[in-house]
């Protein structure tokens, strides 16, 4: 027995060692790369799963809609409220709508939407696919002549990629509404004047960059959620890990992508 314990102890030590973990990390990167390549190979080849994509778009939208409405409104309201004293110091209160619009369009709307969606949609996709994996539902789909990757993964990734930019646009509108509420309360600015000032500083690049950013975020959230769920193991524990991994990894990647995209976009200004 002692020999067995010693063997398993040395095995565990090997498995928790730096080299082992580094190996696992690079193996994961390679697997994610293959997962993304497989998505592009299968998503745009017939037969297309239009119905399922639309159903998933609806699911993604419905899951996040309430939370995004509340969060977007509060973000717009609070940002305006917190920015007022600084602008007031220079007597520049009239610039508030412009400041709010730039902040919301360039950063807050895509970012807030992506973070909310990571939590709501990413975790839900991870848990759903994870649960399907451990209860052999994905295998059942495969043996009944359906390609589970195409039906489950491609549709969900396409749905998040399509829906999150739409949700980000909605968040921007709701955020601006929150900003307007604050501005109209303090300055009594009319809605028309506020909106004129909102759109004045914005350029075409701001809209394009926000859309591209949200699309990338949407793709990331979908891919990460699906990857975590699709390769989930270890029973119910694995389902929890898949959901958790989907949220943490997606949020982390969203921030990294934000930095990279901002740097790239700034080169075009």
């Amino acid at each position, binding site marked *: 027995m002692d020999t067995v314990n010693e063997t398993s102890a040395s095995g565990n030590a090997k498995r928790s060692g730096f080299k082992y973990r580094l190996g696992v990390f690079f193996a994961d990167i390679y697997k994610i790369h293959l997962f993304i390549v497989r998505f592009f190979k299968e998503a745009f080849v017939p037969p297309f799963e239009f119905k399922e994509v639309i159903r998933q778009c609806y699911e993604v939208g419905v899951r996040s809609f309430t939370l995004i409405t509340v969060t977007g409104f509060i973000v717009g309201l609070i940002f305006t409220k917190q920015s007022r004293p600084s602008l007031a110091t220079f007597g520049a209160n009239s610039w508030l709508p412009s400041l709010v619009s730039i902040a919301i369009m360039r950063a807050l709307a895509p970012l807030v939407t992506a973070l909310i969606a990571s939590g709501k949609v990413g975790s839900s996709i991870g848990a759903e696919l994870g649960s399907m994996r451990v209860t052999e*539902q994905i295998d059942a789909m495969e043996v*009944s*002549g*359906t390609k589970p990757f195409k039906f489950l993964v491609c549709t969900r990734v396409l749905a998040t990629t399509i829906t999150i930019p739409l949700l980000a646009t909605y968040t921007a509108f709701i955020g601006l509404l929150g900003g307007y509420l604050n501005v109209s309360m303090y300055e009594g600015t009319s809605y028309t004047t506020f909106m004129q000032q909102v759109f004045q500083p914005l350029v075409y690049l701001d809209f394009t960059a926000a859309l591209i950013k949200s699309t990338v975020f949407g793709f990331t959230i979908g891919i990460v959620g699906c990857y975590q769920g699709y390769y989930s193991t270890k029973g119910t524990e694995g389902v929890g890990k898949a959901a958790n991994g989907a949220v943490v990894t997606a949020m982390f990647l969203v921030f990294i992508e934000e930095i990279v995209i901002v740097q790239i976009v700034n080169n075009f200004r």
Partner: protein
Amino acid sequence: MEKQKVQIDHKDTVIKIRGLKKSFEDYAVLRGIDLDLYQGENLVVLGRSGTGKSVLIKLISGLLTPDRGTIEVLGKDVTKISDKELQELRIRIGFSFQNSALYDSMTVRKNLEFPLVRNRKNITRAEIDTAVETVLDAVGLSQTINQMPAELSGGQRKRIGIARTLILNPEIMLYDEPTAGLDPITCIEINDLINEVQQRYKTSSIIITHDLTCAKTTGDRIAMLLDGQFQRIGTFEEVFNTNDERVKPFFDYNFIQ
């Protein structure tokens, strides 16, 4: 219910396995398997937990790939055919999973419709409804049509799982632990259902189990998997009429001697 005599065509081999090997990391699960499944036959694969019984049927259905050997199913080697051919072949094979693997988010009706809608492109609504009603009737669960899987008992889930595979009229059925986790009465019902499927749908089946009552009731032949190889293949009596110390405890435990 007593098993009725069925016509087995020993000249027509629907599954032919030769030299099959499969390992997971350093552990060799299957160490050179040879097996023939004849047309119309119920073959039971017996063995202890972890001996690779489920691995065997996952290899047959192409869910896993072998390290070595050939698996010929209905004349096609699943290790060599293309993805498209494998997909077409899978429609001719029914796979009943240990935990039923019903789609949680769908009603019983949707679960049954799913393989049909996915694989028969020009099928009409009326044909789908008829097919669903027929298989539900075959497993005796017509009343559950609008229920969700979570609302069903273990035995009902098994039956619906079997119904879902039957809807495509498979030529081969693979049952993974069909009676695992069920009470004795439900086990008898499932065993009867397996025999009924064999008679009514003219299927050839591989039944994975460690339940000897299931093996005796449903199996035309028994294959005993020990140490990664089939040690004994034959009728129930032929397999257990032995002094092999690896086989005897299996029988003694199941029949409480």
